[in-house]
C-alpha cells in the first residue's frame, strides 16, 4: 500500500492535480475564518456592485485624524473623474452647434470651458437633429459639473440641530484632506463585487464550491457504488444475472444521461429539490459506464488461477469477490470515482443553469450562481464578476480531477507505464 502511494506521488500530473484540489479545499476551510458572514446574506442595496474596496464615506470624513497631503495632480484627477475627454468633446460639439467658432474653444483649459458652458448651455434645449438620449446625456454632464463649480476649498459638513431643526456647521472637509484607510472604521473588501441579490460573490463562491464538491462527492459515491456492485455481480456470476443487468445497463446507455437527469429533476418538482436530492439523482443516472467497465475487467479476472484456486478451496462468493477480485480492480475504481465526482459537479452546474438545480434559498451552488447571473443579464451588461469566477472555479476543479485521473492511469495502467 505504502509503495503504491509513493508511486502515485511520483506522477507529476497527479501531484499537480492533487495540489490544486487540496488548495481549493484549504480555501474552503480557511476562508470562513476570515469572512464569517453567512454566504447568502444580502449586503448591498442594489445589484452587481463591481469588485473593489468599499470605504464608508461617512467614516472616512469622520476619521480620527485627517492628514493633509499636497499632491500635485490631485486637482487634475478630480476634474478628470467628473469631466472626461469625451465629455469635453461633447461640450465642444454643443458650443459649436450653438454658433461658437471651434477656434474659440480651448478644451484643455477647464475654467474657460466651464465659463463658456455656463454661458451657452440650456438644459431643456434640443439642438436640431439631437436625439432625446443625447439631450439627457448633456443634462448628466451638466449636473456632474456642479461639483467642480462648487469645489472651492472643500465641502462643509453640517448637522441638523435637534432643537431648532436648523443646519449647523460642524466642520469642513478640505480638498487636501486624506484619511488613512486603516483608521477608517468601516472598510469592506469585495474582491468579486456583489451579485444581483447584493450578496458578496466571493463569500458565496466559497460556500458554493463546498456545496458543489459535496454534491459531486455524494453523486460520485452513489454512482460508483451502484456501478461497482452491478459490474462485479454481472461479471463474476455471469449467466442470466449478467443478462438481466446488461439489459438494464444497455437500456440506460442509449438514453442520454443528461436528458434523463433533466426529466427526473423536473418531475421531482422544485420544492423537493435540495442539494442532496440533486446529488442522489445525479448518482442514480450516471452509474452505467462504471458497470460496463467493471464487468469487462471482472470477466478477464474470473478465470485466473488464484480465483479458481479459491473456488476449489470452497471459499464463498462474497469472499472471492472481496479478496480475490476487488484488489485487482481497486485502482480502476478509484479513478472512476474521481471522474464521477468531477462529472457530478458539472451535472449540477448544467442542471442549475437550466433552472432545474437545487432550490435557491438554502445553499448556494456553482450552478445556481450562474443561473441567477444569467437571469439578471450579467453577461449582457458586462458584469463579469458575477459569473466568470464561477466558470473558472468549475474549470479548475474538473481540471484538477482529470489531471489526477490521468496521473493515476499512468501509474496503474501497464500499457501506459514509462
Amino acid at each position, binding site marked *: 500500500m505504502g509503495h503504491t502511494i509513493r508511486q502515485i506521488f511520483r506522477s507529476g500530473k497527479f501531484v499537480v492535480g492533487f495540489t490544486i484540489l487540496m488548495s481549493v479545499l484549504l480555501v474552503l476551510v480557511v476562508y470562513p475564518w476570515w469572512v464569517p458572514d453567512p454566504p447568502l446574506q444580502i449586503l448591498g*442595496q442594489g445589484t452587481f456592485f463591481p469588485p473593489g474596496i468599499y470605504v464608508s464615506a461617512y467614516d472616512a470624513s469622520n476619521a480620527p485624524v485627517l492628514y493633509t497631503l499636497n499632491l500635485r495632480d490631485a486637482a487634475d484627477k478630480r476634474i478628470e473623474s467628473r469631466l472626461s475627454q469625451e465629455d469635453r468633446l461633447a461640450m465642444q460639439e454643443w458650443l459649436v452647434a450653438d454658433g461658437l467658432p471651434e477656434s474659440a474653444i480651448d478644451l484643455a483649459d477647464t475654467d474657460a470651458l466651464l465659463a463658456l458652458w455656463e454661458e451657452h448651455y440650456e438644459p431643456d434645449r434640443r439642438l436640431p437633429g439631437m436625439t432625446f438620449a443625447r439631450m*439627457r446625456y448633456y443634462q448628466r454632464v451638466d449636473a456632474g459639473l456642479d461639483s467642480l463649480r462648487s469645489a472651492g476649498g472643500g465641502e462643509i459638513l453640517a448637522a441638523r440641530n435637534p432643537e431648532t431643526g436648523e443646519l449647523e456647521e460642524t466642520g469642513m472637509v478640505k480638498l487636501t484632506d486624506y484619511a488613512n484607510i486603516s483608521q477608517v472604521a468601516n472598510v469592506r473588501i469585495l474582491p468579486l463585487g456583489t451579485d444581483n441579490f447584493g450578496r458578496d460573490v466571493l463569500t458565496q463562491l466559497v460556500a458554493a464550491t463546498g456545496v458543489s464538491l459535496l454534491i459531486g462527492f455524494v453523486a460520485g459515491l452513489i454512482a460508483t457504488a451502484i456501478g461497482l456492485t452491478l459490474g462485479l455481480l454481472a461479471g463474476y456470476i455471469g449467466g442470466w444475472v449478467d443478462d438481466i443487468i446488461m439489459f438494464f445497463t444497455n437500456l440506460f446507455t442509449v438514453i442520454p444521461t443528461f436528458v434523463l437527469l433533466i426529466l427526473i429533476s423536473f418531475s421531482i*418538482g422544485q420544492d423537493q429539490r435540495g442539494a442532496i436530492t440533486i446529488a442522489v439523482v445525479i448518482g442514480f443516472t450516471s452509474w452505467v459506464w462504471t458497470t460496463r467497465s467493471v464487468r469487462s475487467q471482472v470477466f478477464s479476472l474470473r478465470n485466473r488461477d488464484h480465483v479458481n484456486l479459491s473456488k476449489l478451496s470452497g471459499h464463498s462468493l462474497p469472499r472471492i469477490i472481496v479478496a480475490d477480485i476487488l484488489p485487482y480492480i481497486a485502482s480502476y475504481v478509484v479513478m472512476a470515482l474521481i471522474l464521477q465526482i468531477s462529472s457530478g459537479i458539472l451535472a449540477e452546474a448544467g442542471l442549475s443553469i437550466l*433552472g432545474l438545480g437545487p432550490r435557491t*434559498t438554502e445553499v448556494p451552488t456553482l450552478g445556481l450562481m450562474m443561473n441567477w447571473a444569467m437571469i439578471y*443579464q450579467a*453577461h*449582457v451588461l458586462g458584469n463579469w464578476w458575477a459569473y466568470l469566477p464561477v*466558470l473558472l472555479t468549475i474549470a479548475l476543479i474538473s481540471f484538477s480531477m482529470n489531471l489526477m485521473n490521468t496521473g493515476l492511469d499512468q501509474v496503474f495502467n501497464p500499457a501506459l507505464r514509462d
Partner: protein
Amino acid sequence: MKGRFTGLIVLLLIASMALAACGGGSAPAEEAVATEAPAEEAAAGEAAAEEAAAEEAPVEEAPAEEAAGEEAAGEEAAGEEVADANALPRNETLYFNGQQWGPVVGWNPYSGSNNNGMAISQSDNARVTMFETPYLYNMLDGQQYPLLAEGAWSWNEEMTEITFKLKAAAKWSDGTPVTAEDVAYTWATHVKYETPTGAGNKDYIDTIEAVDAQTVVVKAKLDENGKAVNPLIVAAYLSTNYVIQKAWTEALEARSGGDATQLLADTAEDVVYSGPYTRFFADDTKVVLVRDDNYWGQDSSMWGKLPTAKYLAHTIFKDNAAGTTALQAGEVDVSQQFNSNVQDLWLKQDLPISTYLPEAPYGIGASLPTAFFNLKSPGLDQLAVRKAIAIAVDYPTIIANAMTNQSATFDQVPRSLMNPTAGEQAMYDQAAVADLQWAGNDLEGAKKLLDDAGIVDSDGDGWREYDGKKLSYVATCPNGWSDWQAAIEVVAAAGKEIGIDITTNYPEWSVYQTVVTKSDAPLPEGYDIFMMWSDGAGPTQPWGRVRKMLSSEFVGMASNWNGNWGQYSNPQADELIAAIPSETDPAKLKEIYTELVKIYLTDVPSFTLMYRPQSFHTVNESVWTNFPYDGDGTVPPVPPLNLTDGWSIAGLYNVTLVQ
C-alpha cells in the same frame, strides 16, 4: 468515458455563456424570464397548440405588398412572404419587443386567446393598432379622448344611459362607414356567445342601441332602486372594448354555425378592421403590421395624417436577455420588457437609449405587485403574524435589487391601495392613515408585535410557535419570473430575522395559476405567502384595484382571475366598495377610499412589495426619435405605453426619423 455526454452539454452551455459575455449577439441558453402574463395571454399558449398555421384567404382591401404575398395560395406564398418580412426597410419600420411571446394564434377580436400582442388587447388601455375603441383612455390625465366617437359622451339625468356619437369620417378597411349599428351588434354578439367581454360586462350593461346611424345609447343594468348597478364599468366599456364590423361578424357567425366555441376559435384572417395598421406577416419568429394608407384617421376630424412608420414589427424573442441584446444592438426601437439595470445601457454603454423619466424609477408606476397571505394557513389567521412579516420585510432591497430601482420606494410613495400617479394619490387622505403605513425593515417592531401577542419561541429552537406549532411557511411565485422571485427571497429572509421560518418555492406558471385562481376551496400547502398582481391604471381605477384587493365577492369563485386570492372577507369593506361607483361627490369618495385604505393597512390581508409601471417603456433612438418623455410638451400628454395602447398611440404620429 463516463459522463462524457453530460460534460459535453455543460461545456457547450458554458461556452455559449462565455460567447454571450464577449458581446456575441446569440441568445444564450437559459430560462425564459417571463413578465406578468395577463390571463388571456396565458390561456392563449394552450390554444396555440391547437392552432393550424394554415394561411387563409387574403385580407380584403389588403395593401399591395400584402396581396402580392398572399394571392398565390399555399406554401409558395408563405415563402415569398418570408422574404418580404425579412427585408423590411429599416427607416420605415418601428421595432418592438416585450409585447409578443410565442407565435400569434389569431386575429379574432371576439376571442380572448389570440396571443396577439401587437394587434389585440382589450383592457383599460386597449391596444388600438388594428381595432379601435370609441374612446382612448389616457393614464396620465385620467381622461377618455374620442377616437371613433365624436366629442365627449354624456350620461342622462338619472345616470342610467350613456349617449355618444360616432365620427362621420370613421370607416372600415373595406371603405364602409363605422355605424352605431356596428357598436350595438358587437355588444349583442359578445353577450350571445358569452365572450370574455360579454361575461365581464353583462351584469353592468343591459343593452347597447343604435338611435340613428351615428348615435349610440348604452343602457346600464339597473338595481332594485332603479339606479345603475355600476356606472364606472359602463363608462369604462367605451375605451376598453373594440367596435367590430357587423357585416363581418355576420359572416363569422355564418361560418361557425352559431357555435360559440367555434366562433371564438376562428382565427379571423379575413377580419375587417378600422385601425391604422393591419396584418402583414406573422409566424413563430416575428409579427409585422403594415400601415393601411387608406386609414380614415388621416381625416382632419381625427389625427389629420397617417402614423409615421409604415411597418410595426416585433421579433419574437426567446427571453428578456435576448430582447435586451437586440435593444442594445439597435434592432429594437421601443422596448416593453423588463431590462434589468436599464440605466447601464446609457451610463456605462453610452447607447442612445432612454426611459420616460431620466432617473429611477424610470417609468410611472401603475400597478402594485402584492404578496397575499393565505388567511387559512395556521398562524396566518393571526393579525400579529401577518403584520409582523409585512413590517419586517426589507422593501428598499426589493426595489433596489429585484426591480433594479425601476419602482418608486415606499418612502417616496407610502403604501395604500393607490398607485403612485398623482391622480390616485389625491384620492385618499394621506395624513389620516400615516400612522398605519409602514416602510419595512422594522425588525424590532415585528418582534415586539409577536411577543405581545404571546407568539414566542417556547421550545428554544429559534422559531416561534403558535398553538404549539412552529410557524413555518412557504413563500412562492411562478418560476422564471425573476423580479418576483428575487422579491420573494427577500420576504423569506425577513421571516428568518423575526423567528418565522419562511422557505421559498417556485412552481411552474401552469401549475401556479391553476392553484392560485381556484378560490372555491382553501389553498393547498405551499401557498402560504404568494405573489400576484393588481390592476394598473384605467378609467375605473382606483376603485377596480381596491375591489380586487379586498372584495369578498371573489371568494368561492371557481376560476378567479380578479383578485383577493387570499380569500379575505370583511362586510364593512364590501359595503364601502359597493358604494363607490355611484358616488359622485369627490369629498365623500375621498372619505370612503381613506376608510378602505385604513381597513387594508389594519387587517393586512396582503402587502404590496413594489410599484410596477403599466408597461415598461425604454426606447432606442438609433433610427427613430421623438418618443414620449416626461415633459415633452405634448397636449394632452402622451403616456409611456409603447405607442400602441390607449392614448399613447398618439405617439405614433409624433415619431420622426433621426436626422
